């Protein structure tokens, strides 16, 4: 049995497994040391977990945009981080206006829905424009070509928005109903974070239902599986691709508003880091796989939040939170060593053969 396992392993595999095992060892040792030191209370661990879930659900929503596009086109839409930025930054000006005339405080629910709608609409419009101008003419080109235009589109959008709205930082107005916190099952949750987690879960649920149950969703899955055959079956592939970009854009716009709710600040560069993290989440969960993006996002958010305190603190590393990004990417390596196609595997919701 053992012989069979080692017999099939190449040297590179063995090296990767050694790295993986060393990481596991470090993680376990660090966690044991931290937990046995009793530095943090149970309530603090719960807080870290909730912070991570809130951050993770935003990653997940953005990651869905990457994963959907990858699913149908097999390309990484690097302009997606700017699609994410464009929505909340544009909606900010409406939010500020609504706040100044007192509407946002008087009708917070309606106000937030209006702001979200504007954000989602803007992001969707930007996503569709990018698809039409930068990707569609290159559909038949080699796969690296749209990748490069995606990076170009990303820079173009970033600096266009810098030109439009300036390079400073703006802050969303703070609403009275979103302040404070409440307790669910003995766990303290900030109102903003509860809203973010619930809204993100709702959006993801709706998307999943759409992909699995609707006719368009079925067509999307068909295009993802085999574009030519889908076309032969009478599916308008271009329309499906447009729908996919629209869905991804709308989700990014929703993620943007949620980001603005928990973090407040908007600026032209705000998409870059969440974009990279969301892409990481998508790969982590298995790119092209809708539930995978959700799982990957949550997983990454929680690891970033809990990881520094849990693994690194115990190992005696000073200022562990500085290494949050290192943890995120180490996690990616770690998962890919043991599961090269991500936690849930690749492919957009196909029947597993």
């Amino acid at each position, binding site marked *: 049995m053992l012989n069979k396992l080692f017999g099939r392993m190449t040297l590179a595999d063995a090296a990767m497994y050694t790295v993986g095992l060393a990481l596991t060892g470090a993680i376990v040792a660090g966690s044991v040391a931290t937990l046995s030191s009793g530095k943090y209370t149970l309530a603090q661990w719960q*807080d870290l977990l909730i*912070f991570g879930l809130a*951050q993770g659900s935003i990653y997940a929503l953005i990651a869905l945009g990457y994963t959907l596009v990858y699913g149908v086109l097999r390309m990484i839409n690097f302009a997606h981080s700017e699609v994410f930025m464009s929505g909340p930054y544009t909606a900010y000006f409406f939010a500020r206006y609504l706040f100044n005339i007192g509407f946002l405080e008087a009708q917070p629910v309606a106000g937030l829905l209006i702001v979200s709608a504007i954000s989602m609409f803007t992001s969707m419009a930007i996503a569709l424009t990018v698809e039409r101008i930068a990707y569609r003419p290159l559909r038949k080109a080699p796969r690296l070509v749209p990748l490069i235009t995606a990076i170009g589109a990303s820079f173009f959008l970033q600096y266009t928005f810098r030109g439009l709205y300036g390079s400073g*930082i703006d802050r969303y107005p703070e609403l009275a109903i979103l302040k404070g916190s409440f307790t669910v099952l003995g766990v303290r949750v900030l109102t903003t974070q509860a809203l973010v987690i619930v809204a993100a879960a709702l959006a993801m649920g709706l998307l999943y239902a759409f992909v699995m149950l609707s006719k368009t969703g079925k067509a999307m899955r068909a295009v993802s599986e085999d574009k030519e055959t889908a076309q032969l079956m009478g599916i308008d592939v271009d329309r499906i691709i447009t729908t996919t970009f629209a869905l991804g854009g709308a989700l990014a716009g929703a993620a943007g508003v949620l980001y603005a709710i928990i973090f*407040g600040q908007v600026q032209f560069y705000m998409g870059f880091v*969440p974009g990279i993290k969301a892409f990481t989440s998508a790969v982590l969960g298995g790119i092209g796989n809708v539930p995978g993006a959700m799982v990957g996002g949550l997983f990454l958010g929680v690891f970033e939040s809990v990881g520094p305190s849990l693994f690194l603190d115990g190992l005696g590393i000073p*200022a562990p939170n*500085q290494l*949050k990004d290192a943890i995120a990417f180490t996690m990616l390596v770690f998962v890919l060593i043991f599961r090269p196609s991500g936690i849930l595997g690749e492919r957009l919701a196909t029947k597993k053969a």
Partner: protein
Amino acid sequence: MLERRLSRLLVLGCFGALLAACAPAAKPYECTDAIGCVTIAPGAPVHLAYALVVAGPDAVLGEDSKRGIEIAIDDKGTFRGHKIELTGEDTGCNAEGGQAAAQKLAADKTIVAVIGTSCSSEARVAAPVLRDAGFTMVSPSNTAPDLTKPEKHVAGYMRTAHNDELQGAVAAAFAYTTKGIKKAATIHDGSIYSQSLAEVFEKRFKELGGEIVAGEAVQPTDTDMRPVLTNIAAGKPELIYYPCFTSAAAFITSQAKEVPGLESVQLMGADPMYSVDYLKAAGEAAKGVWNSSPDFSAFAGGYKDFLDKHQKKYGEAPLSAFHAHGYDAANIVFAALEKVVTADADGTLHFGRQALRDAMFATKDFKGITGNLTCSATGDCSDTKIAVYEIVNADPASWNPTGTTNTNPLKISQ
């Protein structure tokens, strides 16, 4: 009558012709300077350059200093009949931006001197490039201690901004001695400026008898500070000292009070948080935050005039803390240039780069608006006075750092 006038003209004309004929022949300018000379032809401007962060989230920091330089140029008018021209590069408040800006400026040999950089991490990489190009640079806002430490000082680097050895000490003394705070935590963002200031604060605070319960760090691009704040909360500090730049500082400010255990913690930052953009980014949580900054009330008499000119030229109060330092930096360059420049009869100016550098480092008891500046051999020129301020109103529209009434931020140290 007419004859006399004619003859006088003739004499004058002859004299002029003689001068024109003799001057270049008698004493043509010869460059003997070790690192090269600059010639400014008649009609060409005296070219000053800036390397400041004028775009991005920390733009107010550089924009503020740039306005100081512009007012200094307005005040100077012309230099021996030459216009004074200011051009520059954005440095982005990071090492890469500083490097790129320095490389670009180094290629332009008409530049007389460089005013910059804004952030200490830029200076660390820009200084050697500008030194090799023969320029002298004066920073209006670098404060990291090791830039002027003898073993790390780069020739041709000087600053009118204070050294953080002093800023950190004032902050620690204010917290411990004036306010009786015994337990503090620090957060820095990994930049040279932020890390060294946090270290100075920790050292001084401990020397005074206080306890540092946590020394943490974040990335300048981080947005979720709640995990790091939760770690800090475990040590139950009374004060968090976080000398970070605008974006990270604002995230820490707005998220600190949401973390259990930190509801009543006092927040304290440093000079980058003394800006209108910080108020914009931090929102309501900025109210009550302390920060240390140059003590504007202790500035020299000329500061009042400067503020009037600023108000007239830009229609608003200074954006951040280093406008006066920019003004003084430009004036140090002008004063030194006056000493070393030689002029030809046609108005051509010559000077040696090393001579200018030496003259700038020889600045002694210079009456600037930030005080009486005397430059040390390693380039510390500041006449440092630091005060601690409290942000008393979080609304950016209330930003009025230099007002006589309704001042915001308000000076709270003696």
